[in-house]
């Protein structure tokens, strides 16, 4: 495993309902990332389909593996890159059960996927109308280190990232489609989740406007002590390279020993009281 890896935060805007165009963008930027010697290219939540596509999710969703994933696998193989991107996933077992999924692909093929656990359904969000929630957190042992996945609103729930971290994640990747009115929440939470877990956190958000909803971009890499190491532009498409140095984890874990100080008995209480809310 490498001590250091290079990330490409590919903050794109999606063309709604045009998987071909979005896939071309993923291909183009993966090659750009390769040229700049990145190891992992990260693309936003639901960037394959667009975020505001409503009933069209049923048409746009694909199984994993499926046609798009096969194309991205070929891309990863050809470039030697690791790639994470978001897409609507159709269950293999039913006809119209869809998940909001992050897909993780490496040069040797599909590494794994994460189905978003917390689906916002309030304000302008209507994800529960279309998606079934996931039931498993996702941490993968890869050539690039132990990498955990989460998606957007998951960031509001410390238990998701804590679990990912307890399963060994050194780098947590959060792909997102966050609109501008929520920017300050995410900027705070990204730092907090990295710091409380003493892990790297790469946050990659959509840019552009969909149905009046403006995605604020601002993708970033946060260090295990909560510092923003790299940051993409607000609102516009951007492409930022940054480095994860795993040797920093040990320093962070000794200086901020939140993992050593965990109190498991509190988790039972959390369960008990959350059921009673």
């Amino acid at each position: 495993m490498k001590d250091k890896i290079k990330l490409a935060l590919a903050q794109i805007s999606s063309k709604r309902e045009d998987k071909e165009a979005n896939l071309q963008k993923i291909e183009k930027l993966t090659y750009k990332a390769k040229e700049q010697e990145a190891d992992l290219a990260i693309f936003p939540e639901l960037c394959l389909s667009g975020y505001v596509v409503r009933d069209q999710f049923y048409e746009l969703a694909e199984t994993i593996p499926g046609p798009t994933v096969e194309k991205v696998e070929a891309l990863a193989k050809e470039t030697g890159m690791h790639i994470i991107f978001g897409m609507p996933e159709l269950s293999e077992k039913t006809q119209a059960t869809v998940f909001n999924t992050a897909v993780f692909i490496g040069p040797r093929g599909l590494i794994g996927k994460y189905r978003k656990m917390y689906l916002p359904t309030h304000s302008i969000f209507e994800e529960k109308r279309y998606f079934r929630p996931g039931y498993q957190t996702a941490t993968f042992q890869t050539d690039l280190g132990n990498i955990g996945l989460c998606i957007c609103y998951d960031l509001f729930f410390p238990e998701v990232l804590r679990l990912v971290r307890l399963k060994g994640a050194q780098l947590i990747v959060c792909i997102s489609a966050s609109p501008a009115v929520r920017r300050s929440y995410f900027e705070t939470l990204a730092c907090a989740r990295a710091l409380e877990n003493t892990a790297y956190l790469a946050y990659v958000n959509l840019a552009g406007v969909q149905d009046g909803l403006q995605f604020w971009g601002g993708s970033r890499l946060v260090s295990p002590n909560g510092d923003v190491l790299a940051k993409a532009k607000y609102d516009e498409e951007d492409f930022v390279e940054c480095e994860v140095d795993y040797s920093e984890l040990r320093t962070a874990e000794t200086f901020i020993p939140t993992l050593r100080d965990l109190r498991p008995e509190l988790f039972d209480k959390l369960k008990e009281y959350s059921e009673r809310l």
Partner: protein
Amino acid sequence: MELREAEVKLTPSVLDIDFSETQKRICRFIKEYVENAGAEGIVLGLSGGVDSGTIAALSSLAVAGKNVLGLMLPEEENFNQKDIDDAKVVIEKFKLESSICDMSAVMECFYKAIPLFDPNDRLCKGNIKARTRMIYLYYYANKLNKIVCGSSDKSETMMGYFTKWGDAAADITPIMDLYKTQVRNLAIHLGIPEELAFKPSTPALWPAQMAETELGIKYETLDLILYGLERFMTPEEIANQLSINKSIVAEVKARWLANEHKRKMPIAPKIGFRTVGNDFRLPRHIY
């Protein structure tokens, strides 16, 4: 133990927003919409009021004044040279294209051609004016491959203080999420002269019609009531905080609720599998 959080404090400062950020966000919205629609700019009505002046300024900043056509649409009954002069201030400052279309002849035709026409029913008559303005705007938009930019603000939208399929008919409504007092301050931020930014509003459906008189409340108070309702405050809480009679808030809330039909597509009985305006939920594409 008292678990309820402290109430929202309804002071004028709750309506303070970051005007630079708001301007940026609205301009980006306009620019992206025009580009994605493949349109060659914007057409909008210029009444000489603050709302239309503000959308004209924002449109000009978004897609350049030469791509924004401001139509002044006077007609005999309501003609007011001051409104034309105020519109021209905006045209010059933001370097807009412009045209004056006198609607008087068209209005006369309508009055003569509608068998049921009642000249004394000023609301029905006034609504013809608002809808005729809409026809002009859409004619120019069709002919010149532009999109129609509406000037509705959040105060009048939430009160239903507009003509259905008239002044609210547009392709985009960039300031519909801003209350009137916020629009006035945004106008100042954009460099619109203070006299125009704080000019008393009128829908100009009949002579000497004034918005605040008709609404029966000052925008400064109305906007705070609407702000409280937006944040799920009860009329009692709002009335207490603003030290006003609860019946004023109740009246605003009644209008706020009763006018949802003006803010939506026409309603259809549910018969099919997916129903327009109900559970037919397609993304809004822009052509």
